């Protein structure tokens, strides 16, 4: 019975490992696409909150400027990722520095803007978007670090 399990388990493990193998370039682009999606959702949330009178125009505009800066960071991130790929880099570590730099830029951008709104419910909703953006890049950096090479 033990041999039978081994016969079944070993190739299965190999197949799974091959299927989910790390790819620094692809993971980076996937993370960037997720950041862009989070920004897209954030813009929609800001629009809805403003339309429904939950946040002021000044508050809306500050969040929009924050999202604009995040978009710039995200675009720059992909430019650097493509440059690394063009240099023929393989593995994950080549992309880790770029992901960490993008993470630092996002932290800087968060501190640059006054992202406070009067409504606590609206604040919670908007903060969630900001945390999502940050955690996507943080998760990418951790994955690249864990993937090694």
């Amino acid at each position, binding site marked *: 019975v033990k041999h039978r399990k081994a016969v079944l388990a070993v190739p*299965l493990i190999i197949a799974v490992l091959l299927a989910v193998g790390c790819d620094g370039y692809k993971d980076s682009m996937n993370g960037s696409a997720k950041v862009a999606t989070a920004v897209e959702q954030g813009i929609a949330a800001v629009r809805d909150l403003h339309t429904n009178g939950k946040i002021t125009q000044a508050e809306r505009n500050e969040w929009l400027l924050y999202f604009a800066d995040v978009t710039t960071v995200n675009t720059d991130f992909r430019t650097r990722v493509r440059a690394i790929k063009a240099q023929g880099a393989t593995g994950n570590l080549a992309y880790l520095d770029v992901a960490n730099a993008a993470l630092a830029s996002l932290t800087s951008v968060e501190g640059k803007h006054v992202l406070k709104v009067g409504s606590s419910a609206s604040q919670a909703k908007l903060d969630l978007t900001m945390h999502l953006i940050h955690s996507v890049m943080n998760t990418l950096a951790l994955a690249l670090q864990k993937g090694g090479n």
Partner: protein
Amino acid sequence: MSTLSDIDAGLLILDRVISLLKSLMGQHGLDGDALGVIADSKDLANAAAIKKMLAEPPGA
């Protein structure tokens, strides 16, 4: 000890698992370039939406 039928059964299951993984990868398996293009277009659309909203007059 494993018999030939055990191994055949194992290979059959493995084949099915790989098919399932391929199916899943096909669904979510865009390559890096394609994901980059998606991110490019989303960033552009986001930047345009932000610019448009910031240009709206107060009270709009």
